[in-house]
């Protein structure tokens, strides 16, 4: 922690955190992506993870969802120390993630991508099979609730537009998010209507007691739904603030790593 930050530390937890990460470090060969980051998520809160490009946000949430093993540091899940061997383990524990690269298979259909790894089945014994109708229906509904009308559920994901594809990933995570929902820049490719739907969805699942980790570069989006804000910079935490304790301009300043921004004409208000 540096001294000149305007951050207030988050208060002591009201409820016990679902996931708690302590002093996580992650090195790739000689590259140090995370140099000791601590973070926690509690049920029913939306915890925003903010920071400049390359700060290590995605790397951090990947250690949380079992993709990377941390080089150092501890992970506690519902109070118990835990080490996920694969994303599947994390998922089974109830963590659903929208990765920044979306983790979709372009050649497969929307429905198949939606249920990949957790297909509902019907029938039993040797006749156990995927419940294709239900899968298609769920997919179309999930997409529609995010504001996208798919032409058909069997369109290949590779032929979807950027925003449509992102919506599939979000709808999927929301559908399967049991205890923690991690969203890595979920709204980056979305239109205004879809964005507002996603923000509303975050609000909705939070009310159901799910903990949400929300990564964004958009200060306004973060402030609209976030309860707490943690800012990363160059692989380290700058600190955590609670909603209401920090102004948009201060937050934006921290996200930029404290560096000057280009001066812009036009209708940008205080925040980019």
């Amino acid at each position, binding site marked *: 922690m540096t001294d000149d930050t305007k951050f207030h530390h988050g208060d002591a937890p009201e409820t016990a955190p679902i996931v708690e990460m302590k002093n996580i470090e992650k090195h790739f060969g000689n590259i140090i992506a995370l140099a000791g980051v601590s973070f926690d998520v509690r049920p029913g809160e939306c915890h925003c993870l903010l920071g400049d490009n390359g700060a290590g946000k995605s790397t951090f949430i990947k250690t949380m969802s079992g993709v990377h093993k941390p080089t150092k540091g501890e992970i506690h899940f519902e109070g118990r120390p835990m080490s996920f061997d694969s994303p599947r383990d994390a998922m089974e524990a109830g963590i659903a993630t929208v*990765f920044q*690269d979306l983790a979709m298979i372009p050649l*497969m259909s929307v429905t198949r991508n939606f249920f*990949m*790894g957790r297909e509902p089945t019907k029938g039993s014994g040797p006749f156990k099979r995927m419940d*294709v109708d239900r899968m298609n229906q769920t997919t179309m509904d999930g997409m529609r609730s995010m504001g996208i009308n798919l032409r058909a559920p069997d369109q290949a994901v590779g032929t979807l537009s950027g925003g449509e594809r992102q919506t599939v990933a979000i709808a999927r995570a929301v559908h399967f998010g049991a205890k923690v929902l991690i969203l890595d820049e979920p709204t980056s490719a979305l239109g205004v209507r879809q964005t507002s739907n996603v923000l509303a969805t975050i609000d909705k699942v939070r009310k159901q007691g799910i903990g949400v980790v929300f990564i964004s570069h958009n200060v306004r989006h973060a402030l609209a739904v976030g309860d707490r804000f943690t800012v990363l910079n160059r692989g380290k935490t700058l600190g955590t603030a609670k909603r209401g304790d920090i102004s948009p301009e201060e937050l934006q300043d921290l996200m930029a790593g404290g560096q000057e921004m280009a001066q812009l004409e036009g209708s940008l208000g205080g925040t980019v």
Partner: protein
Amino acid sequence: MTDTTPQAVVDERLKSESFGARLMKRPELGAIAGVILVTIFFLITADPAMFTLSGIINFMTPAAQLGILAIGAAMLMIGGEFDLSIGSMVAFSGLFFAAATVTFGMPLIVAIPATFLFSAAVGSLNGFIVIRSGLPSFIVTLAFLFILRGLSLVGLKLATGGSTQLRGVRDAIEGDWLAPIFSGDAFGGMFAWLAERGLVETFNNGAPKVPGLPIEIVWFVIIALLATWVLLRTPAGNWIFAAGGDANAATNSGVPVRRVKISLFMVTACCAALVAIITVMDAGSTDARRGFQKEFEAIIAAVIGGCLLTGGYGSAVGAFFGAIIFGMVVIGLTYTGFDQDWFQVFLGGMLLIAVLFNNAIRKRVTGER
């Protein structure tokens, strides 16, 4: 605003699509055009004997043996890996099976499961090394291509005391109740009945020219149906496509990629074992060269059938038709009057034309580009 009905059932952004176009979009059916083209070609150029019942069974038999391997190879390719050791696996599990029956005198009910178990173990070893080392499966299974082929030779010499051929399987399994499931012809009674009524050609002595449907064709069809069911209708099928499409993305989405891939290696090895058992029982013997280059032909058939070498795309039915095309072309030339020196030129040319035609038809019908 034009669009005020988000739940609208008819989307104005879709043109209507012909039935043919919808059919041809399925990778399963891509290879059908090739089958038709090749059939027409031989109808014109070949001796009519090729398309009598006995002629058809004659080219379907090697096609079925190849096809069983090709379906295994296709599933593995869809899952994003190769297995170059299946040809050698045919020789090796053939040796294992023959030694079990002849040298150790096991009954089939023991020998056959043992052979499958053993092959699956070798397959899983393949898969395990690929997964653990992260090396391309090409190079790992290539090593097993050599190793298994070499071990077959060594094992044969050991089992026979110096020869490269182990025989006597037919005597050893004589009368075993399991034998008809893995060798000989199915529906023999039906064919005889048909022959009596003149529906099947007969020899002068009245015996039907075709004693029955060779059992490998039955297996071929069953396996193709089974593989299609698994690929299209079960979660495992979804995982196979995902693992091959992008192993990373699949893992991140919770697909147990390692388990899927190792299972696929085992399935492929079992397909090889099945072919080995069938051919060894039919021939009554095995030798060190069995299955030579079959890995290659299996991959060819799978690719003709529309599998992508890069994984994540393809179908079992495609491999089914691919094997038929390949079998038909290989055997077909013998029925034509062409000079046999031209065999390879012809084989290559036909393969090329068949896949080009497939492709052209598909593009045409689906309006791609």
